[in-house]
């Protein structure tokens, strides 16, 4: 479904991704793990079009999307839930969900908003509230709901568990699995490597801009390097 081959991404002079290659197959949950500043968010931003790679190729459904504008890429079925949620704080919960469906022209939008409310009943209670007044966990739900509203084929999630209480983390991960079961492929960036590897099929480990390790989630969980570096022993 998605094939990234040897991309280099720069912020000015900073070489943030160095020849990164990854692949995501249809129906999978694939996770990217790595320390702070490794380049995980940079990779997602490049996939969704917020950043442009200098070299290398990005094939999505056998078409090149490298360097395309973000608003074009989202139309092809890639939705990105950015790090830190980035909800539109000046707009209500419902308006945020409507914006999630900005690229759609069908008549099912209202129905899908109701579906998001079924998944996240809390959002339904808060639907007329300005999203800037939501708690962190509620904003995370909103950011995910908003991305789902675009009906993505591939969902990019950047640290969905960041700053959430353990019980909330569990809920969010259950929802991620549900979304996946309903047919959406997921590329998941997580600090919480333990949780991420428990839901993912495969994983990539990124260090200072390079992929240093890849394998099935099981193998990665068993690997000594991963245990000591990301699973806390």
């Amino acid at each position: 479904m998605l094939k990234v081959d040897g991309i280099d991404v720069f912020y000015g002079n900073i070489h943030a991704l160095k020849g990164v290659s990854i692949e995501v197959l249809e129906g999978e949950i694939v996770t990217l793990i790595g320390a702070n500043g490794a380049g995980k968010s940079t990779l997602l931003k490049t996939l969704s079009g917020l950043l442009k790679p200098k070299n290398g190729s990005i094939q999505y459904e056998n078409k090149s999307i490298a360097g395309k504008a973000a608003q074009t890429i989202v139309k092809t079925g890639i939705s990105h839930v950015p790090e830190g949620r980035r909800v539109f704080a000046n707009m209500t919960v419902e308006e945020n969900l409507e914006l999630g469906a900005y690229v759609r022209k069908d008549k099912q939008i209202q129905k899908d908003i109701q579906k998001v409310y079924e998944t996240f009943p809390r959002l339904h209670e808060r639907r007329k509230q300005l999203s800037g007044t939501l708690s962190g966990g509620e904003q995370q739900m909103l950011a995910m709901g908003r991305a789902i509203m675009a009906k993505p084929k591939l969902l990019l999630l950047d640290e969905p568990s960041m700053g959430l209480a353990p019980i909330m983390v569990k809920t969010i991960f259950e929802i991620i699995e549900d979304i996946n079961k309903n047919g959406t492929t997921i590329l998941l960036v997580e600090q919480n490597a333990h949780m991420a590897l428990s839901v993912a099929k495969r994983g990539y480990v990124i260090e200072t801009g390079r992929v240093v390790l890849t394998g099935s989630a099981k193998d990665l969980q068993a690997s000594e390097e991963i245990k000591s570096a990301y699973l806390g022993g």
Partner: protein
Amino acid sequence: MEWVQQLVNGISLGSIYALIALGYTMVYGIIKLINFAHGEIFMIGAFVGFYAISGWGLGFFPALLLAMTVCALFGVIIERVAYRRLRNATRIAALITAIGISLLIQYVVIYFRGAQPEAYPNVLSNRSFDFFGAQISSQSLMILCTSIALMILLQFIVHKTKIGKAMRAVSHDMDAARLMGINVNTTISATFAIGSALAGAAGVFFGVYYTKIEPLMGVIPGLKAFVAAVLGGIGIIPGAMVGGLLLGVVETVVSALGYSLWRDAAAFIILILILLFKPSGIFGKNAREKV
């Protein structure tokens, strides 16, 4: 009952300031630029209205519509040609460019038609009628009602339409808006178009109300509308409306009290006070600036 009359005059003048202030605030809200060329758009609007009425014999509303359309186009072109390439430049660079554009427009207009003023034709019948003992002119009432209608239309666009929602999204977070599939450039163009159209309308109203227009007429109302936008809270649309109306009323009251020489100073005293005591304006939360 003289104060009712003064109040209506103040509100009419204020609605002109409000219409100009809306463009300042919308543009600031979306690209954080104080568009100092905005007063010149207002002037262009006044002149387009003038030529439409006295040259082509158009009526008030067709002339208004024409002025708004021309100004909308003008605003879009200015953004496209001058500001877009500066979007990632420092703010001071964009600000200086805006001042440059402002001077450019003033002197290009003077170059082509000279600096002499023009008397605005009488397009609106100006009967005055009795309203609880106060003499209200039908002209100021017409201006007031049309401005209010435009402001309601604006609120509708901003809150209920897709482009309005896109404008609010872009003003809050450009990258997140891109991720929704919003075309940021188109949205910014639309913002310039709408803001400039409102300034164009204000130009026609100003001409009708004060009956005299000239190429530098945009400077003082432009600055005052900027004060109005800051007064209401820059970037906040209802703030610009309230700030404009308030400023108009204050100016009229200052004149009515016999201090008409202080009229222009009043606006700038307000600006200084606001910047000293509540820089975020009436409607602004004293929040840190968004990054």
